């Protein structure tokens, strides 16, 4: 079953055509990794799925509804978590409150219940001992794990990741990828924009290769990494691996 269907999506920023006719699907429980050169439109595509950007043409169907026709955007967004390259933690509150806030404000849970969930999720990402720490005292890897826990607290159907490890020092990349890998093992549906090719190969059910606003090639990791059909894909992979 397709949880996300992207159908002929087009998007421009003023005259800059960023997405020209993108179509792909994400099935329930699948991990789709989007790869491609800088500026190819990967982030824009991801942001469209979370309605941080709107589209000019086409349709994005998530959980059976055309998201650009949705009236209550906030109700939609709580089902679709997003993890950003720059973590984007709330700097005015501690780790626990970062994870509690939206549960209380959006899901209308009471504070105790929300804290239980938050502590559970933070334990799962290995940060149980850090619940009272403020973001500015954490390492990049820890921040990103908090950001993942924060998204998980909403119990989303889908998680979107935009280069979750690109802002990290190399030695912290592994701890974040481990967390994502664990989620994949628990059949979380995820769309991940990444430059970590080894990780993508390991975790993805499908790889989507984007270049200049179109999908040049998509397929299983084996297909894309071992037998890329397209010359551009081959060039890109040879440069990055």
């Amino acid at each position, binding site marked *: 079953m397709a949880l996300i269907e992207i159908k002929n999506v087009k998007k421009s920023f003023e005259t800059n055509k960023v997405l020209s006719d993108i179509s792909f699907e994400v099935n329930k429980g699948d991990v789709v990794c989007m790869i491609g050169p800088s500026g190819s439109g990967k982030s824009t595509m991801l942001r469209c799925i979370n309605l941080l950007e709107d589209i000019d043409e086409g349709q994005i169907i998530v959980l059976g509804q055309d998201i650009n026709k949705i009236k209550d955007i*906030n109700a939609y967004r709580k089902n679709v978590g997003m993890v950003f390259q720059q973590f*984007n933690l709330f700097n005015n509150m501690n780790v626990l409150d970062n994870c509690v806030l939206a549960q209380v*404000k959006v899901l209308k849970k009471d504070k105790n219940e929300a804290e239980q969930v938050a502590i559970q999720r933070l334990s799962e990402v*290995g940060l149980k001992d*850090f619940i009272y720490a403020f973001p500015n005292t954490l390492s990049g890897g820890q921040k990103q794990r908090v950001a993942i826990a924060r998204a998980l607290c909403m119990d989303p159907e889908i998680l979107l990741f935009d280069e979750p490890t690109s802002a990290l020092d190399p030695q912290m990349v*592994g701890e974040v990828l481990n*967390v994502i890998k664990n989620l994949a093992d628990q059949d979380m549906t995820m769309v991940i924009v990444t430059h970590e090719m080894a990780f993508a190969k*390991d975790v993805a059910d499908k790889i989507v290769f984007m270049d200049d606003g179109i999908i040049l090639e998509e397929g299983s990791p084996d297909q894309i990494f071992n037998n890329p059909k397209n010359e551009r894909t081959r060039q890109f992979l040879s440069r990055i691996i």
Partner: protein
Amino acid sequence: MSLSKCLEILTKYFPSFLLGIRTTLIVAILGTLIGLIIGLFIGGIRAVKLDKTASKSVYIIKKIIDIITKIYIEVFRGTPMMVQAVFIYYLVYTNIFKWDKMFAAIFIISINTGAYMAEIIRSGIQAVDPGQNEAARSLGMSSSQTMMNVILPQAIKNAFPAIGNELIVNIKDSSVLMIISITELMFQSNSIAGTTYRFTETYFVTAMIYLFLTSISSFILHLIEKRLNNTKTSFPQSDTNIHSIVIASKGE
């Protein structure tokens, strides 16, 4: 000028000075607080950037509000408060109702401060990194929930030195409100000087009192600022990592 004469004036007219201090502080503190509230509203609205989902009518309303608030800010920052004071005081007094002078003074200093505060708050909000806004929205929080819980607390904290500075400015600049004869410190000093004919000594005492008030205020503001910056943090010992799966990262 003799210092002993200064001391004599201070002790002899202490009740008058004290009344002046009281009025000055009431006007300055209330003016700063009400100005801050005005600034939070107007600065908050001005900082809002409509996202793509906003309808055309919302867009037009926002545009109109932006223009009106811009005019307010420019007018009140671009003219002297003394002129604002006489103009507004007599405008209301002769055309609307015979208002209380003290009330008028607080009203005038508040809207004057509000114009400065609006800009302070707006830039404070815009200095909060927009990623936090996106993160909050991506969790399903509304724009007002995001503003109240995430953005404004940080904006106020960042802008605190500038907000505090408005209080200092108001303690000094409320002196121009003597033009509508409220019993603030400058007005009181004028009448003391008028009785004693000791202008130098009287105004020296006045200057010292102002200096005292602003120094105390700076000191208190500084303490508050330090507290704001001193966010409590825990000192965790271990980073209980989940079982490791070795994944090679790029370029290794």
